[in-house]
Each structure stands twice: as structure tokens, then as C-alpha cells.
């Protein structure tokens, strides 16, 4: 069997395939031939493949129905390798490339029957083919506990396609674009609009979801300027391509129309080339377009008619049949019956005749069809049955005949005798639905139009214009003029002067009005007739919708959810309007009264890869590095993420440290680093601390208002610890701020909060106190900071600096300028370890030089680098808090026992003062920060986060009175210790508390001062 349905070369001059070479692809394990230019759907039809899958609920055979993105049945799993699996690819939009591998996602009848047997076993008499609408809701509601059992069966039976199991081999990216006019759709309306907009001088982007631009011109019978439509198309595209500032994007779907004329386009760059993207190319690209004006020339979707067994392979949309014949040279059968409500669809019968095949009949719902194409069909001898419709399709795995009867649309009934007409292909056209999706994304409600029997875009807040079929203008001659007008309007609105393009001469194709037929009546009642499908992907039938309404679901949104109409990957593009029409009829109201469901982005499914773009792997989120980062890496440091920063966590095995078992553990490394600081000298890369330069005559005043403590008396050359609160009185940040000059301060913030604190300062300055003269500038990255700490730090630094480091000349909390290792530096005597400390700041470009010089001289002092873990232990031994670890936005400075840092009598009401004074925050049984000393042995380290109780014997639920916030083993103290918040903790020193553990055991601890080491602070003042 080889391309049995392909016409002979030359038969269709309009075809867009390249017959000079042959491709081969594999579908469901069968290798088939195709031509370049084919879609998978056209190739499958060419090869006579009727059944492309089975429906997921009823396991009915299904074939290709459409030729575009609205296709409900021909949905494939694609990919030759696990790395290139793509689920739910529409065969109608996927070009064939050599070696393409795909399979049906319907998983075949046997799979579904197995699943249904499983369901039947589970739930008794239901299951199989008799699941009515709402089946799942009704069956699996009770008992609730059984859901877990049901779920795995339902999940296995549900869904289409398989998610890939390994990472995607390809990459995706984003591109930001701007234009004056974005034209969505490159059919006649879009191309005329693009020409008009560009000639006026606008920057234009034209996108079209198909492989080739042209829309209906690609298969039109009409002859602009008395030439085939394809020729005008070719000339026009060439003209646009030659222009500057026109970007033509084929294979690009406009999927979302967002606020401010921001439109997301999804370009499939390499999907037509192969299983994997060529090297150096991203597979798909998301264009993030910000357009001044948007022209929606999105055209229409044809509606099929809803009649019995209308899901049989061989029933196609009339327009799709024409498309396959004229674009691909494929006739999917021998003998056609066309059933239609309108004159335009007659072209399909004419195309079928032109292809040399037989037209059995045209069945027209209208009593007196008329128009140019109707006349042509008559004159070519086609039998036209007027005032009738196909009420049922006959056949097993493929259409074999059409049951035709006269119908009374008004009264929804069949009139007269039925007649069976033998045929192998049934084309139906129930009219056309303008593609209003993108317009609806903007919040615009579609409006019903009786003339075209369809919804058109309603009023919108966005800067958009509609053109052509998208707003119900159908004759080609009018579409071209309308497109040119819309493009010109858009350009004018964007500030250009109108220049109208010359349009081709074209005779008007006359048509008589169409019939308002959606659901075709049957001789049997809907519930008894063979299934009449509305949504083929989700197996929603006309009977299902009628049942839903009888059960009380009157809102179309409820009907949709109850029946699952429009829930498939096709989002009901061809079925929903029919469903609404059925609902309207049953409810005895009009379609506009029934209304549409909401159209949401995305218009078609988008690969996750395209959404992520390059923001994955190493580029997912920035890693921020200090100037010494490379050194840390080379020294084998392990890193901790602090915000986006990578900070050295600890340095296992530094200088050959081996630990007890040959490889230093975290605890061993931290013990070593802690002891080095307490007994010798250690160094920390503290560059990540936020640093904010504050200048201005009111700098001191401002700082006093945002910190809880007093700043009036801080002299130049000295620093002070400050606590920052939110308006609620809760601690939000802390750090040391140094007075560099009368109008010049340097504030430090916690690493993770730097940006938020700067925002916070700007917020207060810009909104509350704009009269204060002060400027804030981040200098975090400018200064590299090295903390030299430990009893030997002075001795080491003396070798490298010209600053007098003596206790009298350089007191605790002072800062000095001088050189360190020959580099100008600011040195601060600030300590976060409780030891004698010098914080050396140099311009970051010089940091590595100074750092290495310190290590060169530090050899003799066994200078030891330490990381954040050691920093945490050392500060906790001193009871120094870490905002965000020991606080959680519910802790006031008083809860932390830091009343020494509160300037109750400051002249201006600083941020948080009033919040802190609230009655509830003054309770003395609030959770307060204390130290905990474990009582169960010196090796015990209480788990961080462990809940604390006073009474270990209490029945569950126990009264929880606090939790452990920081907990470590201290090599200096020789035992574990913790910081914790405990209800009323400040007055409970000496009491015992208990920490019940998940394993049923209970730990105990004594409440002690949070200052475990050197409580008088003697070591930092030396």
C-alpha cells in the first residue's frame, strides 16, 4: 500500500508538496512514504490510514477530521528517542521529516478495554461503554476513603499521551520583540493588513501557525487578478519579505493575548526539520511581543454537524477535504457525500470532482440553496438534496454510507422518508466560527452574529483591530479590502499616515444565507439514537449535554465542567459552539443567551520547554559570587546558598585535615574551624553582607527613624549595631552602621535582606519623609569584606598594615583607614564571633591580592578559613541572633531580650515603636529567646525546629510552648547547645523543658542565658 489516495502528479496545480523526493516516517510501527511539504495527517490520509486512534472513553475508532489546530482525533505521541518524546502533537500541524516516529495516543482498543474491565471489576455493573455523562462524579463520590483505590485506575485510564521520562534533549529560548503592528494570521486579511501597515511605515510582525503563510489562499478556488490564488500569495509574500522592518514568522502560533498588547508567540523553529534540533539551534522560541496595535486576522474554524455516528473515520470537515485535495494532492476516498448548511462548502464537492472522484450527493439543510458555487455544482451535474441532512453515518471502522432525511430545523424533527446513500467519505459543514480566542483573552466577550451564525469579537479594552473572517467577513474580495483597512487603521493609530495597497481584482462569489443547523435531528430521540458526538476528543455527546441540562446544569460553564466538553487538548475548538447550540435548544433559549465558555490562553498547547526558555540548568537563576569565589572553590569549600549568593559553608579537609575516618565530616570541619577562631585566627569571606552607602544632611536622622536604637550621639569613626523593625514592631533586619562623616554613613544588612532593606529605606524616604535630604546607594558589590577574627588576629594583621591596631588607638566598634597588603582599606573592629576581630574592606578588584597576602603571612598563625556553618556556631555561642533563623516575623526586640537596642525615648517615633507597644506584644508570656542546655548528655544536639513543652506527661495534643531556633555542638564548650523561643522564657531561667521526638522519645533541656560563651564580652574588647 503506497499513497493510494495521492493524486497523480500534475492533477492539482495548487498543491504545495515537493514530489521530487520521498520521505519515510513511522506511524504505530509502520513505515510509510510521504513527500516534503506533507503534514503527518496528509501523509496518513495519502497512505489510506483511516483509523488513527481510539477514543478514550468509548474506545471508538477515530480518524483525521480537520486540517488545522482544531483537530480533535489525530493526536500523536512523537519522538524517536526517550529524550525527544512530545505528547499530544496534532498530526494536522506536524510536518513530516525523514525518520519521523509517531504513534497514536489513544493507546488502542485493547488497552482501553483492559482498563474498562478493571473499572468494571472495581465498581460492578458500570464500566464498559455505558458510562453516561457525570459518570465519574456520580460513581466515585462515596465513600470518600475509597478514592485512593479508585484513583490509580482512573489515572491510568485518563489522559492522552505520555509525559517524557528523561530530560529534554533540546533547548528553547525567548525573544523580546516590539512592533507598531502585529498581524496574527497570514491569510488574505492578514497579508493585506501587513501590506497596508508596512507601506504606511509601521514596523510589522506577521505570524502564522501554519507551515506556509497564506491561510485559505493555499486551497482557494478563487482567482485574484484572474490568476490562481497561490500566485498572488507568492508575489505578496515576496514583497513583504523584501521590506525592512517586516518580520514574517511562519510556524508561529499567537497563543496568548495579555494586557497592554503583550502577545506571546510560540515559534516551532525545528520541529519540521527532525527529531532533534540541529546543533546550535533552539527547538522552539517564545516571542514576547509588545505591539502598539494588534490586527487579529485569525480566520475561522469550520464546524462539523452533529449527527449519529459522526465520529466515524471518513467523516471530515468539508474545508479539510478541500485542503487535503488542493494543498497536498490527497483525496481521502472515492465517493463523497457532502452535507452542508451553507453555499461555501460546495467548493469541496467541486474540488472532489476536479480530483476525478465521484460525488454521490450534496445534502443541503436549506430548502432553496443558491449562489455561484451552487450553480456550478448543479451545472456539473451533482445531485443536490435540499431541505435535508445526513442524520446518521453508517459503517464500522470507516464510513460506508450516509442516512439522509428531510429535516424541520424549527421543530427539531425529521420529515419524510430516509434514504441511505453509499459513500466512503462524508464531508460536513455546519458553518464557520470566527476564531475569537485571542480577542477573548483580552477580556472581551464574544457577541453573537445571526448573519454568519457565529460569535464575533466583542468590545475590547486593548488596542486591537479585527480583519476578515475573524469578525465574520467571508467573501474573499471583502476580506482583502477589510484586511487592508484594518492594517491601515492600525498604522494610523500607531502614528503613521495611511497608504493603501493596491488589491487584486476579484469577482464576488454570491451565497444565499446559511441554515442555523448544529445538531441534526434523528428519527429516534437523542438519548436513543446512535451517539451524536459534540466533542470528539472527550467523547461528549449531544445526549450527554441534554442529560446534563435535565440534571439541572443550566449555566454553560457548569455544562462544560459536568460533561468535560472542551476539556481536551483541542479545547473544544470545533465542538463547543455546537454544544452551546444544543444547550440553548434544550433550555429553550437563544445561543447568545446561553453564551460561551471562557477562552483562556494558551490557544494551543505549548511545550513546557518553550515556557521555561533558557531559564533552566545553570541559567535557571543567577549564582552570585564574591571576589574570592574561585579561591574557595580551589580550597575545596562546600557552598551554602544564601539568597542567590554562594557562600563557603565549610572547608572539609582543608590543608590535609583528615578527621577520624580519613575524610573530614561537617562536624569535624566545623569543630576545627571553631577552635581555630577561638584559639588562633580564622578568616571569613563576609563580602555578601549588604552594604548601603547613605549620604545627606539628614542621614543620621533617617537612620534613627528606621532603627530601633539611638543614633544621635554616634561619633564619626564609630559603628553601632542596629535593629530594624517593620511597622508591626517585628524584627526584620539587623546590622552594624558606621558613621563615616557627619553626613555619611555605611549601613550593613544581612546577606539575604540587602535588596529588601534598600527598598524599605527608599519606600520610607519616597512616601513618608521626602523632606529628609538623604541618598541611598548599594555598595555591596564594590567592597570585598574579609573578617579576620581570633586572639591572634591583631598579631597577623600588624604584619600587613600601616594602621595602629593597638587597643587604645583602635577601639572596639571603631573604624580606621589605611593600607592592608599595600592596598587602601577600611578596617572595622566589629565582631560577630565574640573574638578580637578586624573586618577588612577593600575595593573588590583588589580583594584576591589582599586575601592571598593574608594567607601568605597567616601561615605562621595557622590562619584558617571558615564558612557559614562555623560562623553560625560561633555567633550562637555568643547569643547573637540571625534574623530569619532565630526570628520569624513574630519576634519583637523585646521578645529577643534586646531592650538595650531600643531607644524608647528617641525624639521621633521610629518605625515599629507603635506596633511594639500593642497590648498583645507586651504580654509577659510571649515566646521569648533563651538558651537551652541539653540535659541528656554532652553529645546531644537538639533538633532545630523541635517543639518544646513544659509537661512531658501531658496527653496529646500537648501544649506547645516554643521551638528550637538554632542548635549546634560546640567544640569550645564541649557540649551541645541551642537557642530557642519559649513562652515566658526570660523569667524561666533554670527551669526544665521537654522536647518530644517523632520516635516517641523525649529530650530535655534547661533554660539558660542565650550567651553561652564569654558573657562579659571580654574577648572582643582586648
Amino acid at each position: 500500500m503506497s499513497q493510494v489516495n495521492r493524486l497523480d502528479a500534475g492533477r492539482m496545480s495548487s498543491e504545495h508538496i515537493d514530489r521530487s523526493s520521498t520521505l519515510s516516517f513511522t506511524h504505530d510501527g509502520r513505515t510509510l512514504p510521504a513527500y516534503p511539504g506533507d503534514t503527518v495527517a496528509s501523509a496518513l490520509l495519502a497512505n489510506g490510514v483511516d483509523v488513527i486512534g481510539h477514543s478514550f472513553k468509548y474506545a471508538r475508532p477515530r480518524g483525521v477530521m480537520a486540517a488545522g489546530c482544531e483537530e480533535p482525533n489525530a493526536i500523536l505521541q512523537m519522538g524517536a528517542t526517550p529524550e525527544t518524546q512530545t505528547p499530544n502533537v496534532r498530526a494536522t500541524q506536524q510536518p513530516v521529516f525523514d525518520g519521523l516516529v509517531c504513534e497514536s495516543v489513544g493507546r488502542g482498543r485493547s488497552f482501553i478495554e483492559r482498563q474498562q474491565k478493571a473499572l468494571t471489576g472495581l465498581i460492578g455493573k458500570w464500566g464498559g461503554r455505558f458510562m453516561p455523562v457525570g459518570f465519574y462524579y456520580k460513581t466515585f463520590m462515596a465513600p470518600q476513603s475509597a478514592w485512593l483505590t479508585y484513583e490509580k485506575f482512573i489515572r491510568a485510564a485518563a489522559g492522552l499521551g505520555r509525559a517524557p521520562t528523561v530530560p529534554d534533549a533540546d533547548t528553547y529560548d525567548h525573544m523580546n520583540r516590539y512592533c507598531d503592528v502585529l498581524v496574527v494570521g497570514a491569510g488574505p486579511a492578514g497579508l493585506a493588513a501587513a501590506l497596508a501597515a508596512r507601506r504606511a511605515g509601521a514596523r510589522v510582525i506577521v505570524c502564522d501557525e501554519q507551515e506556509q503563510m497564506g491561510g485559505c489562499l493555499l486551497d482557494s478556488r478563487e482567482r485574484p487578478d484572474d490568476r490562481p490564488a497561490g500566485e498572488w500569495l507568492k508575489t505578496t509574500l515576496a514583497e513583504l519579505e523584501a521590506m525592512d522592518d517586516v518580520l514574517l514568522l511562519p510556524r508561529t502560533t499567537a497563543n496568548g493575548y495579555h494586557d497592554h498588547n503583550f502577545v506571546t508567540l510560540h515559534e516551532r523553529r525545528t520541529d519540521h526539520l527532525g527529531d532533534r534540533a540541529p546543533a546550535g539551534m533552539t527547538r522552539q522560541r517564545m516571542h514576547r511581543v509588545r505591539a502598539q496595535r494588534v490586527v487579529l486576522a485569525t480566520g475561522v474554524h469550520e464546524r462539523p454537524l452533529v449527527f449519529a455516528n459522526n465520529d466515524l473515520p471518513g467523516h471530515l470537515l468539508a474545508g479539510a477535504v478541500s485542503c487535503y485535495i488542493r494543498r497536498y494532492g490527497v483525496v481521502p476516498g472515492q465517493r463523497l457525500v457532502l452535507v452542508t448548511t451553507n453555499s461555501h462548502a460546495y467548493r469541496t464537492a467541486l474540488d472532489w470532482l476536479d480530483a476525478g472522484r465521484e460525488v454521490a450527493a450534496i445534502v443541503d439543510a436549506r430548502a432553496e440553496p443558491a449562489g455561484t458555487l451552487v450553480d456550478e455544482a448543479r451545472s456539473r451535474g451533482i445531485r443536490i438534496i435540499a431541505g435535508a441532512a445526513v442524520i446518521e453515518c453508517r459503517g464500522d471502522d470507516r464510513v460506508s454510507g450516509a442516512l439522509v432525511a428531510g429535516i424541520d430545523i424549527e421543530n427539531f424533527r425529521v420529515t419524510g422518508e430516509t434514504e441511505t446513500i453509499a459513500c466512503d467519505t462524508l464531508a460536513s459543514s455546519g458553518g464557520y466560527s470566527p476564531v475569537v480566542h485571542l480577542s477573548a483573552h483580552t477580556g472581551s466577550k464574544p457577541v453573537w452574529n445571526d448573519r454568519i451564525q457565529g460569535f464575533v469579537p466583542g468590545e475590547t479594552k486593548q488596542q486591537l483591530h479585527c480583519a476578515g473572517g475573524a469578525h465574520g467577513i467571508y467573501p474573499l474580495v471583502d476580506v482583502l479590502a477589510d484586511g487592508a483597512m484594518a492594517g491601515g487603521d492600525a498604522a494610523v493609530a500607531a502614528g503613521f499616515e495611511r497608504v493603501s495597497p493596491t488589491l487584486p481584482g476579484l469577482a464576488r462569489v454570491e451565497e444565499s444565507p446559511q441554515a442555523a443547523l448544529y445538531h441534526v435531528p434523528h428519527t429516534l430521540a437523542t438519548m436513543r439514537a446512535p451517539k451524536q458526538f459534540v466533542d470528539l476528543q472527550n467523547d461528549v455527546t449531544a445526549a450527554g449535554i441534554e442529560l446534563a441540562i435535565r440534571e439541572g446544569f443550566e449555566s454553560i460553564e457548569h455544562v462544560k465542567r459536568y460533561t468535560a466538553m472542551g476539556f481536551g487538548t483541542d479545547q473544544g475548538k470545533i465542538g463547543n459552539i455546537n454544544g452551546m447550540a444544543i444547550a440553548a435548544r434544550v433550555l429553550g433559549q437563544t445561543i447568545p443567551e446561553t453564551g460561551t465558555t471562557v477562552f483562556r490562553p494558551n490557544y494551543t498547547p505549548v511545550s513546557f520547554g518553550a515556557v521555561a526558555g533558557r531559564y533552566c540548568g545553570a541559567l535557571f537563576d543567577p549564582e552570585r559570587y564574591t571576589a574570592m569565589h574561585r579561591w574557595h572553590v580551589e580550597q575545596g569549600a562546600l557552598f551554602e546558598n544564601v539568597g542567590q549568593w554562594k557562600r563557603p559553608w565549610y572547608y572539609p579537609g582543608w590543608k590535609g585535615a583528615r578527621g577520624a575516618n580519613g575524610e573530614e565530616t561537617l562536624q569535624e570541619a566545623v569543630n576545627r574551624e571553631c577552635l581555630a577562631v577561638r584559639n588562633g585566627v580564622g578568616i571569613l569571606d563576609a563580602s555578601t553582607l549588604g552594604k548601603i552607602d547613605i549620604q545627606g544632611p539628614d542621614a543620621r536622622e533617617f537612620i534613627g527613624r528606621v532603627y530601633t536604637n539611638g543614633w544621635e550621639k554616634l561619633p564619626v569613626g564609630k559603628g553601632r549595631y542596629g535593629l530594624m523593625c517593620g511597622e508591626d514592631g517585628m524584627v526584620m533586619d539587623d546590622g552594624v552602621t558606621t558613621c563615616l562623616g557627619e553626613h555619611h554613613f555605611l549601613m550593613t544588612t544581612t546577606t539575604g535582606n540587602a535588596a529588601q532593606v534598600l527598598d524599605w529605606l527608599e519606600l520610607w524616604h519616597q512616601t513618608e519623609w521626602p523632606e529628609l535630604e538623604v541618598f541611598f546607594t548599594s555598595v555591596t558589590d564594590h567592597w570585598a569584606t574579609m573578617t579576620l577574627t581570633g586572639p591572634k588576629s591583631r598579631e597577623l594583621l600588624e604584619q600587613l598594615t600601616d594602621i595602629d591596631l593597638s587597643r587604645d588607638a583602635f577601639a572596639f566598634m571603631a573604624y580606621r583607614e589605611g593600607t592592608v597588603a599595600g592596598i587602601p582599606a577600611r578596617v572595622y573592629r566589629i565582631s560577630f564571633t565574640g573574638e578580637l576581630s578586624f573586618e577588612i574592606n577593600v575595593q573588590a578588584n583588589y580583594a584576591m591580592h589582599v586575601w592571598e597576602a593574608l594567607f601568605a603571612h597567616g601561615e605562621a598563625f595557622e590562619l584558617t578559613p571558615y564558612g557559614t556553618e562555623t560562623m553560625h556556631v560561633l555567633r550562637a555561642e555568643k547569643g547573637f541572633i540571625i534574623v530569619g533563623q532565630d526570628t520569624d516575623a513574630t519576634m519583637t526586640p523585646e521578645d529577643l531580650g534586646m531592650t538595650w537596642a531600643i531607644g524608647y525615648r528617641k525624639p521621633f517615633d521610629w518605625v515599629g515603636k507603635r506596633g511594639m507597644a500593642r497590648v498583645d506584644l507586651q504580654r509577659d508570656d510571649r515566646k521569648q529567646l533563651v538558651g537551652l542546655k541539653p540535659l541528656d548528655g554532652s553529645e546531644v544536639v537538639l533538633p532545630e525546629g523541635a517543639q518544646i513543652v513544659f509537661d512531658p506527661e501531658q496527653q496529646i495534643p500537648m501544649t506547645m510552648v516554643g521551638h528550637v531556633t538554632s542548635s549546634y555542638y560546640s567544640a569550645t564548650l564541649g557540649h551541645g547547645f541551642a537557642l530557642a523561643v519559649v513562652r515566658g522564657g526570660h523569667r524561666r531561667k533554670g527551669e526544665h523543658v521537654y522536647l518530644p521526638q517523632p520516635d516517641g522519645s523525649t529530650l530535655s533541656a534547661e533554660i539558660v542565658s542565650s550567651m553561652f560563651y564569654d558573657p562579659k564580652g571580654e574577648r572582643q574588647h582586648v
Partner: protein
Amino acid sequence: MSEFAVFDPHPVRAGSAEDSADSLDAARSRSPLHDAASPVSLTTQERAGVLLGERAFLGHLVIRGNAEDPGFVRGVEEALGLELPVTPMTSAVSETARIHWRSPDEWLLIVPGGEEYRQEMALRYALSGHVAVVDVSGGQTVVTLSGQHAREVLMKSAPVDVHPRAFPVGRSVTTCFARAQAMISRVGEEQWELVIRRSYADYLWQWLLDAGQEYGVALQS
């Protein structure tokens, strides 16, 4: 001057002339991109669609002040010999310096490396009232971007219109750049410069190389 602490970050080199431009000590300096890795393979300059480079060790000063105060505007111009750009997203350039508008009361001055202290002193002498001058030279660097596909690289990175109609030579925009920020300046027909922060430099360098890969990337000499 006791209101402000002005700091010269550069060491005085033995035997160097008084000229402060000489005090930049490149030998002991490491630029933010010193250790940046190259995850993609590079091509030759002739074949490259995108050329990337770094203008390291320049002097970067943030200037804050009131653009509506004629004294401030005049003072800046006297100190720098450059017109203060008060139109949003513009810049002014002399042979050695460029000043960029960054916000209604903020400018970024970029001068040859080592000159930042002298320039700050000059500004502080010329200006009075409420102003701020902040040396941020160690905290950022300048990346150069050119080549026929430089614009595409920018389009992949930033949500700003870089079309010649919207982004003429001399324009300067501070905006999101990938998941970080950058100031984008068009300094020539096909020459662009990015001012990026030191701590994000490795990330952005990787990003730029990746974005340019499909066009071929070479390093600018």
C-alpha cells in the same frame, strides 16, 4: 569635607607620577570577569556574529542630585566638562568619560580607571547642597557587545526595544537582563555596552555566551 569620607581605593605605586590615572594597579587587580568560565565554544572574530569583551577596571561613580537645581547641573558640567543628561535614558560622552542618566536624580559616570577619586573630589568641590557621590568601581564592570547579531542577543536578554528606531546611539537604559539587571547603552551603530554588577558577572557572561552561540561568539580583542 568632613561631612563625607572620600576614599581613594587605589594603592600608591612606588615611582609612579603624581598623575592619579597612573595609580590604577592592574597587576594586583582582578576584574569581575577574571574567572568567568566559557561554557560554549568560541569562533573566530571574522566568523562571529557576536563579539563580547570586557572593559575592566574603569572608574564608576554614582552621582545623585537635583536636576532642577541649576547650581547642581552647572557644577557637574564644570567638574566633568560634560553636559549633564537630564532627558531620561540618554547619555553624554567626551573623549574619556561618559555620563548616563539612570533615574530622575541619579547618574552613572564612567571614567578611566584610577580617576574616580580625582573626579569625586572635583565633583565635591564643584557641588554644594544635597548631593551624593559614590564610588562603585569595584562593584561593576562594562561588557562590550558588538557584531551583526548583537541586537538579537539583547532581545533574548532584556524586555526593552533595541530597534534602531527606538534605541538610537547614545541611549542608555537600566533594565532587567536575563534574571539579573544591566544598564544597556548603545555607544555606536553596532556597538553596545552593558554595565553589570560584579556578583552577577559570571552568570551574565554565561548567559551572553549562550545567547550568542547560535550566531557564533568571539571575544573582542
